[in-house]
């Protein structure tokens, strides 16, 4: 008999899967982006169920708040895509199906065998403090390095998007 927590987990897991499927299957690009936001949200919920409050909230802020909205803007600004019926992906089915089936078989086969441990009880005070300390202590260099990566991405984005002068 699954516990309440497990039932909640299963619910959000189901929403995630359905949302992901909808992203792929829905014809309208705008709708697909909305479904993506749903998926992100339910993933965030999963994190929170698993006591990863910081990661869950980041997921909401970054993915739902920023990325999904950005995508929606991009789609709306690209006029001829909004009204279009979307791309037909029918030709991709013969390749996608066996690959997807393969992924399914492999994951089910080995993950099912593995005796998963129940999640540990949450630590008092949440995880944000711990993560923050880790970032400025043990993982300081990695943390700083991530900013260098972001800088590189920034430079690239500016270069590629900038109007040519002259």
């Amino acid at each position, binding site marked *: 008999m699954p516990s309440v927590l497990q039932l909640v987990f299963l619910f959000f897991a189901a929403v995630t899967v359905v949302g992901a499927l909808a992203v792929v299957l829905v014809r309208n690009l705008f709708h697909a982006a909305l479904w993506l936001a749903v998926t992100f949200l339910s993933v965030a919920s999963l994190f929170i169920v698993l006591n990863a409050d910081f990661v869950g909230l980041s997921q909401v802020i970054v993915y739902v708040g920023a990325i999904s909205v950005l995508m929606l803007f991009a789609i709306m600004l690209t006029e001829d895509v909004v009204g279009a019926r979307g791309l037909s*992906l029918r*030709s*991709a089915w*013969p*390749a*996608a199906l*066996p*690959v997807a089936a*393969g*992924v399914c078989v*492999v994951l089910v086969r*080995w993950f099912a065998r593995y005796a998963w441990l129940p999640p540990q009880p949450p630590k008092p005070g949440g995880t944000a403090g711990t993560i923050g300390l880790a970032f400025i202590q043990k993982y300081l260099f990695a943390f700083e390095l991530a900013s260098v990566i972001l800088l590189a991405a920034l430079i690239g984005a500016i270069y590629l998007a900038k109007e040519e002068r002259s």
Partner: protein
Amino acid sequence: MRAYLWLIPLLPLLGVLINAWFGHRLPRRVSGAVACLVVFGSFVLGVAALIRLIGMPPGQRIIYHKLFPWISTGGFESAVALMYDPLSAVMVCVVTGVGFLIHVYSLGYMAHDPRYPRFFAYMNLFTFAMLMLVLADNFLLMFVGWEGVGLCSYLLIGFWFERKSASDAGMKAFIVNRVGDFGFLLGMMFIFAVFGSLRFHDVFKQVAADPATLTLTVTGICLLLFVGATGKSAQIPLYVWLPDAMEGPTPVSALIHAATMVTAGVYMVARCWIMFLNAPLALTVVACIGALTALFAATIALVQNDIKRVLAYSTISQLGYMFMACGAGVFAAGVFHLMTHAFFKALLFLGAGSVMHAMSDDTDIRRMGGLMKWLPVTGVTFWVGTLAISGIPPFSGFFSKDEIIWSSLAGPMGSWVFWVFGVVTAALTAFYMARLTFKVFHGQPRMSGEQKHHLHESPPSMAWVLILLAVGASLAGFLNIPPAIAHLLHLPERWTAAFTNFLEPSVGTHEQAVYLLEASVGGSQIGFAKLAHGLQHNAALEFGLMGITLALAAGAILTGRWMYVSRPGTGTALARKLPFLFRTLQNKYYLDEFYKAVIVRPGMALGNALWRGFDVLVIEGIVNGIAIATAIISRLFRVFQTGYVRNYAAGILAGAILIIWVLMR
């Protein structure tokens, strides 16, 4: 001493780099000067090392210098290491000394060529390759030089590649040399398989330690190596490339024929003297091929009308002499002739170049005559060369050739058959050289009026080179005065056979040769070695035979004068009387035609058939097959290959699944 040994080959390489990269930017004068100076630098270093070598006790006259390990993997180790012993020293001095003079000569000769820097880059590269060949302390490095020399000969002979004959000749040299190189390569592989090393020192030590059991293997190896030598040194049956090699610029011919390239085979046989002495059968083959080639090429030279072609056949013939000496077991005599030959053959070729220069590149001696009047320096020096090659005392050829002819009888593997070959060839040599010289420089001028108008002596840079070489060709013989003569003239001990004594640590003494020969056939079965030992000190016999040779040579020269100056029609009349013989010789025994009919044509036919079959079945099959296969694959996997990112991603995912599957199996 060691510290600058590596500079000897490096300097010419430096010249190559300078001329290849900056050559077209530099003024011509600088470009040529650089090329000459680097070779001269090598020469100076070579001589300095030689002096150092002489200062050492005779038994220890060897300098090793390991530059760096080259290949080291598993069981195979090979280093880039140099060795300087008397034999290397002689070769280095000849290659750089004569090579330097040829470089200087080229300054004037090539002055008007548009690809001046490239010419000098190739010449320096040639010198570099040859120096690597003679300085190597192992077979592998020697092979690198061996191949490098082959490549450079291809580049230089085909230097004027606009002329079809030139690029064909380059190709011919390359292909024929490849055949020989294949033999060398096989021999090298056997050496490694049998001895587990490619270092001369290791291999020879093993052979010397156990001559009796190794004879059979060593004979095989020696025969394979000798195949390589016949290719490089233009012996029967692989000599065909050398006469065509004069398609290159004349200094190139001089370099190939005199100082480098063709001497490589003789050097290699001399270097492997221990192995060859352990293989009497191989040694006999060497001697027979040498003797046959000497006579055979000399007869062809009798009737050629191209000034460079006569000299080319004479080179083949002289190389035959050297191999005959080696085959008789007297390697020192072969190397000595190599050295004197380098002087007088370079002299003759450069003289021929000077004549061509004056004659507007005409090479037909039928259109020359009486040139002595216009080209006094060339004429006199050419005479020196002629007398030297004919073996007239006191020129250098007398000493070296006489030693070979005497060794062919008195050497440990000597025989009166070789002696007869040697003497007859000597007479023929004197005759065709006399014919050439008299026809070119004496008698009535036969050139056209325009040619006559342009006749002029070569510029000083070329003339001085001829003079220097003439001095060398005259005096080099005194380095090795035979004991018999020295004894007669009461010369001091150190004058007697100085060259041979110097070389002996590298190529063995008579006693060592006899010992090895006897050991390899098991006991004293070869009585003639003892007989030869007896002959060795028979001065009366030596003088007698020397007299015969000398008389024949002098007679031949006088006959030449009679036939081509006093009675100019005689030669033609003789040719008319013996049309068959004449035509056979004129056409070089139809051997080129024979090769063409027996080897080249069927080869080409086979090649063509193969090519057609190959072309149609395989290449087109592959091409069409690829096209069809690509079409099928792309139709099958269009989803992956149409350039759609999603399909590529699916491929990655499929691959990941595959990896997991394999890992979890």
